[in-house]
């Protein structure tokens, strides 16, 4: 879950990592006032979440307060995945004696958190590709209490000495600690400026909090004013997606989700996790256009399968659904069959008219076959591959 830059910087400041002079503006007039107060040329950064915008199009420069107002107005009008930006950060351009970058993240190879520092600003990954000599890494323990010496070793390995070594060690240590404390998956300062007096100030920052860690991060989330239903998705959820999430929340048995809306015509009720990724690829490869992504797994209840089927079939433009899965282990083919058929009958349709294909081999398939036979629905067994099943679905429903 991405924090906005202004939120990430509040977290830094709370943990005594200084932030370069800046003001958050919610209107063009506020941006103008902020630029006047900060003095001199400023950078304006729209507070957005969309990866596309973060890559390009959300940053402007302004030489005067009037220009800041004009540019802020433009930035505040950006479309951030169905949302407006959450303000514009107006940043004073500060002179830096040196500019570093810091990052803390998890390394899946070593299964440990890792601190990364570079003697140039930017994205540490890109720097590592282009100037491997300017980057240093140091793994640390998430199990043992954090020791500052590990940060010192990192800084020292970049050849930094004297007072700068001790000051930078402090910044890195604090960043690593807050990374662990707040269940972050990334805590990045792509530009850490060394000011004339030798102190450091973060000019840019971004943080991701792990969704799975959110439940125990109530205190900091409340402090930042982030509501429980603020999911920080890259785009705002559609009504269809919100309804899908509600189905999952209402019944803890099994998993339906994530439910994602696409603009195609093939309704998908498909096996969760890897199976749904593979099936969605297969449908697209066969020339089909999925109406949605709606993974179902973890042995869902019949009721959950009913609710999902009804949701998918009630989407405008969806005439038929494809019910497909990998060979299932814990999810039961018979319970899925019961769920989709029950939903269709309750909606007043014939199951055989609405189910283009049913390919859920595996656990309890013998019972599933009996149920499907009774309702005249075609059933594919495990000898029909995922690709073949997807092809048949596309042929039956039409691209």
């Amino acid at each position, binding site marked *: 879950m*991405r924090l906005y830059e202004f939120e990430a910087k509040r977290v830094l400041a709370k943990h005594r990592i200084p932030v370069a002079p800046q003001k958050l503006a919610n209107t063009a007039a506020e941006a103008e006032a902020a630029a006047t107060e900060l003095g001199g040329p400023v950078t304006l950064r729209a507070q957005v979440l*969309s*990866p596309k915008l973060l890559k390009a199009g959300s940053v402007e420069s302004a030489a005067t307060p009037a220009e800041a107002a004009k540019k802020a107005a433009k930035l505040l009008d950006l479309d951030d995945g169905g949302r407006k930006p959450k303000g514009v950060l107006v940043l004073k351009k500060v002179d830096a004696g040196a500019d570093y970058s810091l990052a803390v993240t*998890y*390394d*899946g*190879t070593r*299964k*440990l*958190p890792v601190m990364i520092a570079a003697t140039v600003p930017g994205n540490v*990954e890109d720097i590592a590709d282009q100037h491997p000599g300017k980057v240093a890494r140091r793994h640390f323990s*998430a*199990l043992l209490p954090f020791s500052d010496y590990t940060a010192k070793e990192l800084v020292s390995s970049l050849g930094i000495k004297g007072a700068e070594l001790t000051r930078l060690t402090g910044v890195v240590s604090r960043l690593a600690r807050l990374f*662990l404390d707040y*269940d972050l*998956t990334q805590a990045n300062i792509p530009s850490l400026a060394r000011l004339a007096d030798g102190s450091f100030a973060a000019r840019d920052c971004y943080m991701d909090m*792990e*969704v*799975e*860690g959110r439940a125990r991060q109530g205190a900091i989330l409340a402090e930042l004013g982030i509501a429980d239903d603020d999911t920080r*998705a*890259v785009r705002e959820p559609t009504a269809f997606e919100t309804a899908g999430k509600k189905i999952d929340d209402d019944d803890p*048995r099994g998993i339906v989700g*994530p439910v*994602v809306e696409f603009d195609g015509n093939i309704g998908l009720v498909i*096996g*969760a*996790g*890897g*199976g*749904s*990724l*593979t099936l*969605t*690829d*297969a449908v697209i*490869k066969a020339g089909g256009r999925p109406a949605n*992504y709606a*993974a179902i*797994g*973890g*042995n869902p209840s019949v009721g959950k399968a009913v609710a999902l089927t009804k949701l998918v079939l009630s989407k405008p433009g969806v005439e038929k659904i494809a019910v497909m899965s*990998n*060979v*299932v*282990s*814990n*999810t*039961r083919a018979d319970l899925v069959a019961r769920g989709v058929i029950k939903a269709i009958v309750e909606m007043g349709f014939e199951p055989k008219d609405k189910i283009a294909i049913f390919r859920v*081999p*595996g*656990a*309890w*398939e013998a019972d599933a076959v009996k149920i499907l036979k009774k309702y005249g629905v075609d059933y594919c067994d*495990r*000898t029909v*591959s*995922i*690709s*073949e099943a997807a092809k048949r679905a596309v042929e039956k429903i039409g691209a």
Partner: protein
Amino acid sequence: MGVLIHKDFEFIIQGITGREAVNFTRECLEYGSKVVGGVTPGKGGRDVYGVPVYDTVREITAQRKVDGAIITVPLAFAPDAAFEAIDAGIKLIVIITEGIPRRDASQIVEYANIHGARVIGPNCLGLIIPDVCRFGSLGGPAVDCRKAFKPGVVGVMSRSGGMTTEICNALSGAGLGESTAISIGGDPVIGSTYTDLMPLFEADEDTKAVVIYSEPGGSTEAELAQWSVDNKSRLPIVAFVAGRFMDEMPGMSFGHAGTIVEKKLDSPADKIRRMRDAGISVADEIGDIPKLVKERIGA
């Protein structure tokens, strides 16, 4: 042979009285696995299909050898259950529980490393040597499990539990079968990655090739590609990368917790390129996997 488990492998199930655990306890017993105990705090003294239930792991390890533990407890108790198993001296731990934050997963794995234990998962279904031992919930009821998994020559490692069964079903259908199939887990931090497990398959004389299933997110495929270049493995590797449609949707999360394209390394396109450059065959469809394996082993 096969890796990690064997016909006399004896294990316990932590969280044995849960809805799903009850199911797969029965399935493991019917498959012939040696489930020697279960743990659910507060429910000691009961039994699940004849398997005695205890309040603590040590009550079991104090009286008998235990080779492995399966953890399938609710999320909030999962790290604690793992520490309990590790402290009780159990050396192979499968964590089925889904949704464990990275910090906790990292702590569990580090603690296991200190104590010489190995973790498979979290967010996995365990492993199986067909017709020898099933340690986890792969394959469902024994009758369905036997259809999908057959003894054979391919070592399988998969980030998706469900796709472990799908791929093995394809390999079994083509007459290749599996030496050992391991659902390694779908999370960003897991106890055993492809490269951690490759040396075990390398040392297993039953294994003639390795098949991996991978997804967007994480660096474990890049790591495997590098490993293949650095180690002149006797085993050809065939890979399948799911979620190619996600290349167009950066930042969106699908499937497992670790399945997200945030960085260049995360993208299916980058993974496929790195693996192909390293001499790993990448299948375009699941159905192509058996053919590629046969080509590579000359069968």
